[in-house]
């Protein structure tokens, strides 16, 4: 049970709920962030790009107005400087090319940021082109345009500008940082929410579990509290209804059983009075049978014998119903077990038929009458149903907790189907023999007597053949008696 509980801890609802919540929180946070990042990055960069293009276009047009072709390097440099001044911004430079001449606004700038592809695009498409480039992990926007004068023909003058987009890039990166910082608390919050949700789900589940276990332990009166109107509440209600139905039918069965047992007790009790009268007068029949005609004598003896049998049966039924009703009481007296067994055997003239192993000096507090009944029954059965030699051995366990009386025979033993029923009431081992000397309650009464002592009787087959019945009684040591 404990092991299963621990396993439940690992694969349990609580862990699964927390994992699911955290996973959902993570996935939604990451997806939302990714989408937002992409959109805002595009928007920011686009705006920058548009601004740069407009500025660039205006500056180039302004500067080109004062420009004459063919131009020399000085004019080119002035043009580049003029455009660059207008654009401004951090890390910005302008390159102007005319035929094979090139001039730049900042001689130290890295002109490789203007890629051959951009140049080719500007030349071939003959209009303004962009390219985003990255150098040493920094984003730049490179923009280039051919300069045309009064018509579509290219003048041969191309102007390029490169400007840093670090600020914009950092803006969108800041968004990522914010999300990264925010995701940890979100996940924690999700976990806490999951735990709370698990709690509300698990509490009724745990209560149901406890109630189920209490039921299993026999407390059918246990009910669970119904809270709310959800599925768990419905389950709790179903549980309560099932429990109530179960309790009712168990109570009904018990009542029926008690009624049946009471009936047997009442019947037996009612039988006793006529049986007492019959038993008394049967003596007269026995005494005078010899003087009667043969048939009448036979009838008289039969009536007498059957009356005695009936009396024994009623005695056994009464004894059984005392066990059933809990009226049977243990009357413990200090007893020498060996002596008690010998007495039982000698009272029934069985001493010569049983090989005994009775160690002297085993004294215990037992109910003498009940031990007598048990031993007489076990020995009687062994002699009736088994084969000689019947052995009886009294042993004690070394710890001093138990007394054992083992009665074994060397007969055919007990087939499994009989072994299972040997302590049943009115069970007859030999179906061919419908009548036996006993009432059919002997072994059942013997077992009840053993149980009343807190002991047991076990039936088994002997390895060498034959049946063995083992009576085990708790060894109550002889000690102070009440006065």
């Amino acid at each position, binding site marked *: 049970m404990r092991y299963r509980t621990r396993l439940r801890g690992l694969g349990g609802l609580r862990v699964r709920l927390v994992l699911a919540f955290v996973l959902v929180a993570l996935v939604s946070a990451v997806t939302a962030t990714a989408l937002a990042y992409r959109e805002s990055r595009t928007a920011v960069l686009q705006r920058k790009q548009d601004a740069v293009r407009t500025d660039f276009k205006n500056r180039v047009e302004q500067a080109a107005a004062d420009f004459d072709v063919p131009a020399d390097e000085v004019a080119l440099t002035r043009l580049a400087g003029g455009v660059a001044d207008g654009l401004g911004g951090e890390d910005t430079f302008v390159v102007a090319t005319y035929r094979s001449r090139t001039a730049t606004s900042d001689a130290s700038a890295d002109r490789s940021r203007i890629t051959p592809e951009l140049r080719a695009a500007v030349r071939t498409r003959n209009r303004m082109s962009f390219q985003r480039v990255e150098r040493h992990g920094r984003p730049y926007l490179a923009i280039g345009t051919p300069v045309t004068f009064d018509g579509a023909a290219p003048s041969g003058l191309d102007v390029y500008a490169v400007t840093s987009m670090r600020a914009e890039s950092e803006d969108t990166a800041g968004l990522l940082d914010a999300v990264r910082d925010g995701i940890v608390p979100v996940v924690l919050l999700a976990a806490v929410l999951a735990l709370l949700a698990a709690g509300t789900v698990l509490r009724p589940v745990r209560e149901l579990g406890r109630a189920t276990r209490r039921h299993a332990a026999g407390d059918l009166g246990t009910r669970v509290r119904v809270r709310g109107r959800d599925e768990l509440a419905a389950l709790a209600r179903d549980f309560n209804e099932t429990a109530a139905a179960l309790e009712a039918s168990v109570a009904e069965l018990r009542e029926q059983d008690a009624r049946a047992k009471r009936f047997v007790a009442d019947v037996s*009790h009612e039988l*006793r*009075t*006529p*049986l*007492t*009268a*019959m*038993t*008394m*007068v049967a*003596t*007269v029949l026995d*005494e005078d049978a010899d003087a009667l005609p043969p048939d009448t004598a036979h009838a008289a003896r039969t009536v007498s014998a059957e009356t*005695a049998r009936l*009396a024994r049966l*009623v*005695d056994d039924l*009464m004894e059984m119903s*005392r066990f059933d009703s809990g*009226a*049977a*009481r243990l*009357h413990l*007296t*200090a007893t020498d077990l060996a002596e008690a067994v010998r*007495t039982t055997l000698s*009272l029934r003239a069985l001493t010569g038929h049983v090989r005994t192993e009775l160690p002297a000096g085993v*004294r215990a507090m037992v109910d*003498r*009458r009940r031990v*007598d009944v048990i031993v007489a029954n076990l020995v009687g059965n062994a002699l009736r149903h088994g084969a000689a030699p019947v052995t009886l051995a009294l042993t004690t366990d070394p710890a001093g907790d138990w007394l054992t009386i083992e009665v074994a025979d060397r007969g055919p033993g007990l087939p499994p189907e009989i072994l299972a029923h040997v302590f049943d009431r009115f069970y007859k081992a030999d179906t061919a023999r419908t009548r036996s000397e006993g009432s059919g309650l002997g072994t059942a009464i013997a077992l009840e007597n053993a149980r009343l002592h807190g002991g047991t009787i076990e039936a088994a087959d002997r390895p060498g053949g034959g049946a063995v019945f083992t009576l085990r009684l708790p060894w109550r040591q*002889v*000690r*102070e*008696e*009440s*006065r």
Partner: protein
Amino acid sequence: MAHVLLIEDDVSVRDGMELVLRRHGYDVDTAATGEHALALLEGPAGAGVELAVLDLMLPGIDGFEVCRRLRATGSTLPVIMLTARGDDSDIVRGLEAGADDYVVKPVTAPVLEARIRAALRRAEPVRSARGEDHAGLVIDRAGLTVGKRGVPIALPPTELRLLLELSASPAHVFSREQLLQSVWEHGFLGDSRLVDAAVGRLRAKIEDVPARPRYIQTVRGFGYRFGPVR
């Protein structure tokens, strides 16, 4: 032969018992109710009755009450209870009420007669004449009387016989089984509660403080002994 009073409400049981006991030589009186039995015992016919067989379940006052009232008058008449149930509580109650012995229905005639004979033998005088004084408790074995500091104590035969048995060997320990055999003449499997109940009744009559007995002492795990009285 002995004169027995049968107190039993069931006609068949009463007639059956009467028939068998008469055949075996007993004088039998019968009573169907406790009231009738008590009246009979108090009347002139009651003087000859030597033993009562008493059914516990009677209409009107029950067997326990009959026994109690009988003992309250100081009667020492031997009483054998006839219990229909054999329930332990009934037996204990009956013994506490003052019954000497019990048999469980349906009882066979030989068993009933054996118990009757044993109970009657307990009431027979002991031949060895000897007056004893055990620290104030005077036991006259010839006259079958017991007195304490000059006051006679009426003891029913079972209690008297138990006291005689125990006091015959002061300081000797008797097991319950021994006492059942010697006093009640039961076999090995007699009910030792008979002894315990009789000891209890006896202590109530002869001891100064029944809870701390001087005369009849319990020997743990073994049984009882008389004295030694100091």
